[in-house]
């Protein structure tokens, strides 16, 4: 599925004439199979943009086209679209309501009208995909799980719809380190299955360890759309939108000066470790005379 946003503008009419547009002439193309991130300060319009993707909000101007069809055109089925685009909202665990993990994850597929045997397959797969043990968790009460587990169950509920395009709004907010790592793994895995993933997050270290293409939005406008490498070279832009370079990238500068790493493009601790393995082993250990 390819998605195009063309000249999209939106303002909340309930704020009356005081309101600035929340989204202002947005243009964005997302190709099938991409994994990209949308970042920007609170109030910049990220969540509002997300709500447009499945027609939950209707733009004042501009279009959203899915596989070259205008989603607000007569005869276009938004219901069908919502089966293909899965949205994971902030704190999705607040929407858990069933008395077992199985039933909660099955809610979506059952609503799609799928036969029960197909539902069973999807539920098991979705629970495994969020790295929870199906047998251990299927009968547990969602409200008794830890925060990280609840979050994963809520994400599984969306994965069970098997959306072609997965959009997540701050999926790691409030999670501890291992919870964040688990969500990161889930996203990597889902993308590796050929799906399109759009990640909205404040966690710049997480984002840069996962994606190359970053879209920066601020005051309702797209201020940058490109490779993270270019973004982090543009200090002026970073400052004007309140972003900073990832902590790992700042560290890489020190390591480079000492000659312990060569590349400047190390976006995660694991990237740094890998590069250190090669650099240091070669220089300081393998270079020692053999005995």
């Amino acid at each position, binding site marked *: 599925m390819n998605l195009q946003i063309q000249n999209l503008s939106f303002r909340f009419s309930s704020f009356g004439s005081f309101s600035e547009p929340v989204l202002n002439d947005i243009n964005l193309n997302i190709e099938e199979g991409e994994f990209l991130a949308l970042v920007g300060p609170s109030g910049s319009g990220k969540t509002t943009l997300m709500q447009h993707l499945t027609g939950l909000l209707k733009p004042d101007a501009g279009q959203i086209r899915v596989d070259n069809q205008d989603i607000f055109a007569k005869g276009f089925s938004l219901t069908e679209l919502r089966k293909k685009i899965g949205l994971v909202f902030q704190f999705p665990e607040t929407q858990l309501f069933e008395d077992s993990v199985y039933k909660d994850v099955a809610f979506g597929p059952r609503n799609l009208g799928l036969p029960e045997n197909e539902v069973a397959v999807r539920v098991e797969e979705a629970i495994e995909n969020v790295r929870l043990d199906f047998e251990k968790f299927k009968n547990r009460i969602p409200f008794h799980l830890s925060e*990280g587990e609840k979050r994963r169950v809520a994400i599984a509920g969306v994965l069970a719809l098997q959306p072609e395009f997965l959009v997540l709004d701050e999926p790691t907010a*409030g999670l501890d*380190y291992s*919870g964040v790592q688990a969500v990161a793994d889930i996203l990597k895995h889902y993308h590796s299955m050929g799906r399109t993933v759009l990640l909205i997050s404040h966690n710049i270290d997480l984002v840069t360890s996962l994606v190359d293409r970053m879209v920066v939005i601020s005051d309702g406008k797209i201020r940058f759309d490109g490779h993270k490498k270019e973004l982090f070279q543009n200090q002026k832009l970073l400052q004007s939108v309140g972003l900073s370079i990832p902590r*790992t990238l700042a560290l890489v500068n020190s*390591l480079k000066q000492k000659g*312990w790493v060569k590349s400047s493009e190390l976006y995660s*601790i694991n990237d740094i470790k890998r590069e250190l393995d090669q650099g240091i082993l070669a220089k300081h250990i393998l270079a020692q005379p053999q005995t």
Partner: protein
Amino acid sequence: MIRISNLIFEYTDGEEKNRVLNGIDLTIREGESIGLMGPNGSGKTTLARCLNGLLLPTEGEVFVDDMNTNEAARISEIRRLVGMVFQNPENQIVSTTVEREIAFGLENLGVDYEQMHEIVDKMLEQFDLQKYRNHPPHLLSGGEMQRLALASVMAMSPRYLIFDEPTSLLDLASRKSLLSIISEFYEEKRTGDKSKISTLFITQYPEETLTFDRLLVLNQGQIVLDDKPAVIFQKVEELKDIGLEVPAEFEVNHYLKKLSDGKLSLNTSDFLPIP
């Protein structure tokens, strides 16, 4: 001083008993800044809520300036002394304007009108909220709302401030601005200001704790580490085992030393500026 001895907190869920805090002994001294980290479900928030009597111990005792949180008669004094700022400020804001929000606690204490005005003005200034004096709080941004929550708590002149993940919902710029306001308090303290506020700061971002006097690590209801942050962050493996992150520079340094048999390491000058 807050003194906690053998604190056990349990809740019952049907037949099942869940022990959230399992024998906490802890002293928070005057003027100390303390970080608190722990995986989800380790009991951080429960511990915070025991400090001002929002939750009462199942066993053991919590003393705030020698007042036991179990004594119902002392609870309102304890709550004035121990201020709390929560993760989501929307949950603690009750008034219709910013000014009234700051005055709310003071009104409840029966502070006289003149003095209340003085305090409100001072807080508006200190937290950079003057221009929003008559704004409805819900139209503020997340960072501004968090500053308002802090201003309202500070208006009561607490002696202890508990922050329960106040930065986890903020974008980077708002996070920095809140942290810089908090660090100004510490600075004032060091330069001999008479306010000897002690702070307990709960966070999932390890780098936020680097400037603190002490860091506590909570796991499965027990304090497993209690030392200076820079000492604790040397224990990379141990922290990883309980599901916690260390600041990037500590992890890289640890890895460097391991790779080079201790021959190579970063200098503290290579460490990143504190956010």
